[in-house]
């Protein structure tokens, strides 16, 4: 036990001398890095605007309230588009994620040294790039519109769904699989009757969870031109129509809250 000898009486300490020195050095490095970062941020900031910020914020607030409620009649179609982007995107991504997950799971992959790393690379690369960037790219390739949004959401979700799904596949009960194999079932039959029933609840849970996230993401995809309510948001922002912006933000907030509620209910019913 680390103790300090102080005039003959021993006092308990949390760490030994070496440990506390090590911690001290770590903290010093951390503080130095943070100070450097802050300095860089501060250097590229126009501080006049920052001191002026409370006034600007107040100004925007007075312009944005009350929201222009009549505008909601024009938001029906964008909301429907947003819902479609999220739902169809989730469906596409699940279709793509299932094979990737089976190829990535240690117990179902056909080749551990060749195919598994490729599947893992697909998972990491689709996951690390935000759906807005995918949307930007797809707009450059297939043109603006809802379709680009659907594909962007689909690609972005593949990695997420496949990762959770392959973890679920790796955690299955192997005895059931063995029992099916013992009956003389083929590889596909083992999959259909031994593995799939075990991961179906996890699959449904992942699908609903991702759908909820996708609703959030699809509300902003329009900012880069990929359809949905974000288009209205960006055009309202461009003409500084703050009452419309505040109404759209309220609608987005409501959509996010509702989708989270729905997803929580459905997951509660499944699991």
């Amino acid at each position: 036990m680390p103790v300090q000898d102080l005039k003959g009486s021993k006092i308990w300490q949390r760490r030994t001398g070496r440990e506390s020195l090590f911690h001290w050095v770590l903290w010093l490095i951390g503080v130095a890095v943070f100070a450097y970062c802050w300095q860089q941020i501060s250097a590229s900031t126009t501080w006049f605007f920052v001191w002026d910020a409370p006034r600007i914020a107040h100004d925007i607030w007075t312009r944005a309230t009350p929201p222009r409620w009549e505008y909601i009649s024009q938001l029906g179609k964008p909301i429907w588009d947003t819902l479609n982007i999220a739902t169809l995107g989730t469906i596409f991504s699940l279709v793509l994620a299932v094979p990737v997950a089976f190829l990535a799971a240690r117990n179902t992959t056909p080749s551990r040294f060749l195919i598994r790393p490729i599947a893992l690379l697909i998972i990491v690369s689709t996951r690390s790039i935000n759906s807005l960037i995918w949307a930007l790219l797809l707009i450059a390739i297939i043109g603006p519109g809802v379709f680009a949004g659907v594909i962007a959401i689909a690609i972005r979700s593949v990695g997420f769904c496949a990762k959770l799904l392959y973890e679920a596949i790796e955690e299955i009960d192997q005895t059931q699989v063995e029992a099916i194999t013992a009956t003389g079932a083929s590889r596909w039959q083992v999959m259909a009757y031994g593995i799939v029933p075990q991961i179906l609840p996890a699959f449904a849970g992942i699908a609903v969870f991702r759908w909820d996230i996708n609703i959030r993401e699809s509300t902003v995809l329009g900012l880069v031109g990929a359809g949905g309510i974000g288009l209205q948001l960006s055009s309202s922002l461009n003409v500084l129509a703050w009452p419309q912006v505040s109404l759209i933000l309220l609608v987005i907030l409501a959509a996010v809250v509702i989708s989270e509620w729905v997803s929580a209910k459905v997951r509660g019913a499944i699991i």
Partner: protein
Amino acid sequence: MSEVDTLIGKTWRKPSFIKRRWLRWALILGALAYLVAAYMTIDVNWVRVYEGLERGKKFVLAFTSPDFTSRSSDIYDGMLESIIMTIAASVVGIAISIPIALGAARNIAPLPVYLICRGIIAVSRALQEIIVAILLVAIFGFGPLAGFLTLSFATIGFLSKLLAEDIESMDKVQAEAIKASGAKWTQWINYGVQPQVMPRLIGLSIYRLDINFRESAILGLVGAGGIGATLNTAFDRYEYDTAAAILMLIILIVMALEYLSGVIRARVQ
């Protein structure tokens, strides 16, 4: 007659995922109707998509020859700014979210504090980063400060919620033992609660660092600093080789962070 007798002679059928027959059919029909309705309103311009395939191929090929050199100073500045924003925002966000997490844990905080902290968490989680960034850019002007504030704000909702849940499920016995020794409130938190949640806090912090870096890549689209602006320009000018280089760098850094977080989490747990 037992159950077996009724089943003998019939072929076995896989039980359905949804047991009630009417519910199953209603769901299937509803889903089909929805898909048809959704497909009708999307109106894909297939000619445009077909024309785009050529550019798509060019982009995929660009990954085989990414161009790091011709815009290297832009890429370097953007990446550095993204990393700086990420680190600063993670530090500040974590520092703020610890007290909020303590306040949002029902077994530590009194009810009024609990409600206020949960409210802060709910607001932070409901607003997406990019929307917060738009508002903050409008208020604070262009530059990394807006991005830094956005990421800090988003960190609070994420970290406080998960940390509060961990505090709520901690082992009461240890905390009580510290309390019984006559510890003050701060000592109680420091020696009774903190050691129990520390591994989780470290794991979550590194995970959030990873998320913050990914998010910082898009904040540039709305003028909040970071690599996003460079990436956007590259796409607008159809410089796919530069875009591919940036994307590869992002993927590489995310992979490195993920590996690092795996190592650190394995060490602290």
